[in-house]
Every structure is written in C-alpha cells, then in structure tokens.
C-alpha cells in the first residue's frame, strides 16, 4: 500500500527525468547545489545527534525548562521556525535591534551576510534547532528506566557521567533511534522551506532549485526538475551511505573507548558546562523565536532599531479568526484519521514481523521519506485523476502515506525493545497472542504509543504539498493557508498562522505526555 503511491510517482519521475539529465549536467550550479544538500544535511544531523547525546548524558539543569519547550518547538512548522530564526539573526533582526544603537552604533541595519550565507551555516543552524527537539523527544519516549539502570551500573564501575553514558547507555539507545535519525538526515537534505528562507541562493540547495523549477510559470523546466529529483535521490542515497559508514566508525571508537578502561572523570566538568550552554542556547532561541513570532502577530509598526513594536493590536488575529477556525477543524480531522490508521497499520506490521525484523517492510515504510515529495507527488496526483477520488479522501490517503513512516519509526524501536520474556511468561499462563498484545504489550507501551500518535498528528498538520496536490486545492488546511501566506513573507500573518499550527500538535504532545506519565 505504501509502495504503490511512491512507485506511481517515481515512474513519472524516471520517465521524464532520465531524458533531461544531460541538460541538468549543463547547469553550472549543480556541484554546489548538490554540496549544499549534502553538507548542511549531514552536518545538521551529526550536530543534532551529538547534542542529544550531550543533553541526555549530562542532564544539564536547563533541561527541565528545555523539556517543556520541546513540543512547541517540534510542532512549529519549518517555514515559521525558519522565519522566527531569521528574525532573530538578521542584521535587522531582534538581537541587532536590542543592541542598537547603544551598543553597536547602528542606526540602520548593517550590511552583513548572516542569513543566506554561501556555506549554508544559517540553514544548518535552523535545521539543528528544528531536528534536535524531534530526536530528543523520540529518545525520551524510549523509556528512561533502562537508561537509569545502565547509568547506575556504569557509575558503580567508577565511570564518569559522560563516559558512562557514552559507553553503557548510548549503545542501547542509538539502535532504536537510528531510523528517526535517518529520517532527519533525509529531511535535512531535501528541505525546501527552510532552504529557501535560510539557505544560500547562488545557487540554491538542490531541493529548493527543484521546487523553483517545478513552479516556474512557463512550465518549461518540469523535465529539468524531474532530472534534478533523480540526482537528489542519488544524493540522499549517498548521504545515507556516508552516515552508515560513520556509524560503523563511531561503533569502533566506542569499542576502543570501552577497552581502554578510561573512566573519563575529567570530561564531566567541561562537557557539563558545554551541555549547560547548549541547553540554555536552545531554551533562549526557542523562546525568543516563538516570542518573536507571537510579538509580530500583534505588532503595529516596528521599525529598526526599536526593540519592541510601536503599538500592538489584535487586527491580524481577529481578521484571520474565521479562517483559523474552519481550517483547524479540517486539519484536526485529517490528522486524526491519518494517525489512527497509521497506528493500526504499524501495529499490524510490527506484530506480524514476529522475532526477526523485516527489512523489506522497513524500507517500504521509509520510502516516502527518502523520495523527495516534490518529485513523486505530482505523478501520484496525475495517476489518481482518472479515478475521480473525492478530494478529502485522496488527501487523507496522502497524509497516511507520510504519517505512517513517522509513526512506524517512532514506535518500532520501543515495540521491538519490549522484553519478549514477558510474552513467554504470559503464554505459559495460557494467554493467546492477541490477548498478550492488547492486555500486556500495548499497555506497557502506552508511553511510546502516545508519543507516536502525537508525532503523527504533528506531521499530518504540517503537510503542505500532499494536501495541495491531491486535493486539487479544494481541501484548505491550516498549513495550505499558512504556506500561501508565507509566500508573502508577511511576518505578522505568518506569526499568527505559525503559532496556530504549533498549538494543535503541542496539545497532542501535552496529552501524550500526560498519558506517558500516568501509565509508566
């Protein structure tokens, strides 16, 4: 069921892409555009994983605050997060405004390239800010009890906090985190909205360029876009290979570290400080980014270098209110249907795989994440046209295609990590497999289930292209409205819609957390 839509779309890409490869190779920007997909993608993923390691391992004091911010940061759509960050670090941004003119002497914004820098640093930063919360949330969903036990064993063996976590706890976490990490890598390599707002433009990262070719008014570059998509696909493959290779390297290093017997007490001081700094930086940028958006949504005139708007009003909100209510209802209904269906399918697949894990299913499930959306969706929409599927149903199905991988990825680890001996005990007590699943395994996995559902809701609410293309524009959700408005770069309205987009998933996460704490 998952393979079919992607295959339909991919067939379309291969057909129109292959013939245009030569034309694409003529484009002088190709090598740089490819590097701008690969390097920020890998850098952002590596940094995010390192930060997760650092924060989980050393539990800085600021973590208590950070943990509360995770859900809203994750729920904030990428475009809104990018605009929030852009407003912080731009030469005319909030930081510069607060420091001007008294500290900097600037009465007009300086001509500095802090955004859209040629190396993609701003883009990498934005990706790290957006993906670390996702990984942290998944990692926290893995259950802290085993983590704590292993940590204690390491401590009694005389290991320092950092070293003990790295050698004893991390190897238990990472395999369950791997698929989400790979999903992050693919996303980071193929992001369009963050790349457009934060990334360089001469040339754009490849995924951005593909979507620009797709939307060019003359429709003359559709073939070039398809060829670009093929290259993007190969690049993603390369990125995944590089990642797997570095995983193997990391594994070796860990083994060597364990064999060396070093307890690493000296590391705790400096790393603890680093972790504290990182956590505080996250809390600050998260709060300020959200606050900046919130403030813009009620701002009157707000010229440089004022630190605050000249006046505030609720005009934007009151004008948008009717739209916000109806589109929220559609968004929530779609998210509910897609998430429930995804949960059911995931459980069927996971239960069906028994003892061994089924790589084929895993590959199929991850497919929609690996094939860039701009590539297979137009083909899928074309394939569905003759069937005259009602728009709402088509959109719901498309949402399922994208929600399923995330639900699967966040649930597979904990589901497989469940102690099979429990099942064995229950079987000897006479319970059948279905009874074990419903009465034992699922209740024990209530935490991860709730987290997976919340992630599913967040993903569904954030989907733009599937909603637009499969619905033929007739299904208006919060996100289709928000992206259309974001194309106008109006910070006030983007702020309002971005916050609304964040509210519902944040609510889902809050509910998931309550379920988690109540049940574990």
């Amino acid at each position, binding site marked *: 069921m998952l393979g079919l839509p992607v295959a339909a779309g991919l067939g379309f890409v291969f057909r129109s892409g292959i013939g245009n490869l030569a034309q694409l190779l003529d484009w002088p920007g190709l090598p740089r555009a490819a590097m701008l997909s690969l390097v920020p993608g890998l850098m952002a993923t590596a940094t995010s994983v390192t930060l997760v390691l650092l924060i989980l391992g050393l539990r800085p004091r600021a973590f208590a605050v950070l943990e509360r911010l995770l859900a809203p940061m994750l729920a904030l759509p990428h475009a809104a997060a990018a605009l929030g960050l852009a407003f912080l670090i731009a030469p005319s941004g909030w930081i510069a405004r607060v420091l001007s003119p008294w500290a900097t002497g600037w009465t007009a*914004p300086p*001509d500095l390239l802090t955004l859209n820098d*040629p190396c993609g640093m701003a883009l990498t930063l934005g990706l790290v800010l957006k993906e670390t919360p996702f990984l942290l949330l998944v990692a926290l969903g893995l259950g802290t009890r085993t983590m704590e036990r292993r940590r204690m064993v390491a401590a009694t063996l005389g290991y320092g906090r950092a070293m003990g976590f790295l050698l004893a706890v991390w190897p238990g976490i990472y395999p369950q985190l791997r698929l989400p990490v790979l999903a992050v890598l693919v996303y980071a390599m193929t992001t369009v909205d963050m790349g457009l707002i934060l990334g360089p433009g001469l040339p754009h990262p490849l995924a951005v360029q593909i979507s620009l070719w797709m*939307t060019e*008014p*003359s429709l003359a570059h559709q073939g070039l876009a398809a060829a670009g998509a093929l290259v993007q696909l190969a690049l993603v493959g390369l990125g995944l290979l590089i990642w797997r290779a570095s995983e193997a390297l990391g594994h070796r290093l860990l083994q060597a570290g364990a064999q060396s017997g070093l307890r690493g007490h000296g590391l705790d001081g400096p790393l603890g400080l680093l972790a504290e700094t990182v956590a505080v930086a996250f809390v600050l940028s998260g709060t300020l980014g959200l606050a900046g958006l919130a403030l813009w949504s009620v701002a009157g005139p707000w010229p440089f270098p004022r630190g605050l708007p000249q006046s505030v*009003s609720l005009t934007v909100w009151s004008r948008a209110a009717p739209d916000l209510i109806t589109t929220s209802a559609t968004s929530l209904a779609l998210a509910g249907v897609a998430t429930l269906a995804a949960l059911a399918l995931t459980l069927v697949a996971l239960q069906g795989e028994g003892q061994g894990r089924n790589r084929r299913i895993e590959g199929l499930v991850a497919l929609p994440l690996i094939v860039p959306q701009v590539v297979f969706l137009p083909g899928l929409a074309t394939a569905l046209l003759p069937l005259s599927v009602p*728009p709402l149903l088509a959109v719901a199905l498309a949402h399922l295609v994208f929600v399923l991988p995330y639900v699967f990825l966040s649930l597979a680890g904990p589901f497989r990590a469940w102690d099979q001996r429990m099942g064995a005990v229950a079987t000897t007590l006479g319970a059948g497999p279905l009874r074990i699943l419903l009465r034992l395994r699922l209740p024990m996995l209530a935490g991860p289930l709730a987290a997976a559902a919340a992630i599913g809701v967040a993903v569904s609410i954030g989907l733009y292209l599937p909603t637009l293309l499969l619905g033929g*524009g007739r299904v208006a959700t919060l996100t289709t409205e928000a992206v259309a408005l974001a194309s*106008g770069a109006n910070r006030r309205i983007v702020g309002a819609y971005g916050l609304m987009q964040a509210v519902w998933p944040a609510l889902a996460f809050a509910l998931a957390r309550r379920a988690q704490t109540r049940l574990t």
Partner: protein
Amino acid sequence: MDWQAVQDKARGAQVYFHAWGGDPKINDFIAYVGQLASDRFGVTLTHVKLAATSDAVARVQAEQAAGKTGGGAVDLIWTNGENFAAMKRAGLLYGPFATSLPNWRFVDTAGKPSTINDFTLPTEGFESPWAMAQLVFEHDSAKLATPPLTIAALADWAKANPGRFTYPQPPDYLGLTFLKQVLYAMLPDPAALQVPVDAAYDLAPLWSFLDALHPNLWRQAKAFPANEPALGQLLADGETTISFAFNPGRASAEIAAGNLADTVRTFVLIGGTIGNASYVAIPFDASAPEGAQIVANLLLEPEVQARAQDAAVLGFQTVLNLAALPDADRVRFDTLQRGPATLSPAELGPTLLEPHASWMTRIAEDWVKRYGVAP
C-alpha cells in the same frame, strides 16, 4: 449563450478561484468579491490560496493529460504573462469569453493596451483583465529626500550608498521586470523589445551595467531577496532605502496597514516605467465556467474596481475607461483618497509596454548563467 442564460446557469454554482494567497489585503478583497457574488448571483466563491500560480496551471495540465474534459478542480485562475502564454499554447483555456462580459464595454482597451495584450500576446478574449500594474520605485523620504530619476542615476546613487538597493533574484518576475526596465534604458532602439528576441542579440550593455552595479547592492549581491514581498520587507526593516513594486498603490496600502513607515514615497523614472495587467482566465475543463464568468464580470464592476483602487484596500489601478462610465460610477473614483505615497495618474507618467515574453526567458537564462552561481 446570452448573459441571462449564463446567469441562470451560474445560480447555485460553486466557483474555485485559484489565486496567489500571500497578501492578506488581496485575500480580504477576494472575500469581498465572493460576498457580492453570493448576494447578487447566488454564486459561491472559494478562494484557493496558492503559494505559486503555476501550481494551478500544473493541475489543469495534469487533468488534460489524464483526458478530462470537465469537472476540473480549477474554475478561475489569476494569471498573466508566462502562465497565460503557457496555458494558451497548450489549449488549457476556456473561451473566448472576456469580450462577451457585459462590463467589457467599460474596459479601456484603447488607453490601456495591456488590457488586451499580455506580454505582447493578444489575449483574444481568453482572459479578462481586472487590475493594472505599473512598476514604481519606493524610497524612504526620511533618509533620502530626492530620489534618482533614471537608471544611470540610480546606479550612481547605489555607488555612493552601497548596500541600500537590490532586486529580487531572477527568474522572479519582479526581478526580471527591473532588468527589463534597465534594458529599456540601455537599448538604442527599444522597439526591438516588442518582437521576439533574436538569438544573436547582444545583451552586453545590460551585463556590463550589472557587473558595475552588483558590488554596490545589498549584501554585495551575494544574496538576493526571493520575491516582491521579501523585497518589500527589506524596505520595511530599513535594510534598503530604495525599493520597487509592481503596484503603484502598494506603499500607501502598506502604510495604511501599519507595515511600512509613513515616510515612504513612490517615484517613477523619466521616460516611463513598465506596466501590465492582471487577468483572470477559465480552464478548459472548469466545473463551473458560467459561475466563473459571473465572477470575472463582477471584477470589472465599477463599484468593485473603485474599491480595488482605494489606497486603504489594495491601491490597484483600474482597467476601466473612466470617461465611459455613467456619472454615478465615475464619482466613486473621483472621491477616492489616493493615500500619502501614491502618485496621481499624471505623475505616474507613461507606461512602457511589456517586452515580448521571449526577452524575459532570454534574460532569465543568461542571468542565471552569469550570476546564478557565485564565483
């Protein structure tokens, strides 16, 4: 079909209007038109807010490829220039319908030839105009009292004030419009712009002008804003001092909305600036072509046109010939407040015709080759 029959058939219709949704002011205006359509003609108008018009064109194209002849997703589409040319070429349009609209008689086809020529392509009734656009420059009068009035003077000003001017990155249409405006100033014989560009035509004057200008642009031309809204945001943030837009009323409307400093003013160049029209078109497989025509006609209603021209609403210039209107309707325009930053029709000066679309393609391709990959 006579108009009464169109009206009868349209009653109860559901019209999906695919239009760029990036500006809340425009979205509100379309909602107002929808209210009129429902009150007066029983037509329900749904604004499908797009991030890019080509999304809708691609959809119609896909429907054609799938063999559909009716029941399409798009009933009405805001279009002009390349989108229209692509749709007309591919036979994706319904019509001709525009010249049969009752309000067509008010359209100023003689005084505003771009109401029937879209980037030199005759519209032949396959799209109906609803707003005039003209390139105007904007400057913050608090920082710059007397703006430069020619392209050459603009370049000199940028040299003296580096980092305070830029243009949207081609192939964005506004960025290309600026380049076409430069071309008007560079070419010995601008009439060449009205016919397809000769492949051998030497654009060297344009490139040497840009080579000299780029080091003095915002971020030394190492980055460009993505589009018109992003360019406007730079002016609002004080990053740039001179900007430009395709809507002569934009600055006033943005000042009224509290988005732009009230010291911003508009100006045009000596010799005129490029102008064109925005249109609506109906796809060949629209589900409600009659309802779509009702909306196209409504957009030409003097009352609606006057509202669009109101600086506090959109500030879009009318496509109508005011002299042809009944007195009661003309008064609607005479009493409009222009807003602090909008030029009078006389001050707006002559409108230069859009060059043939092939110039745009050529400039875009060459620009991307020359500057699209930073050295």
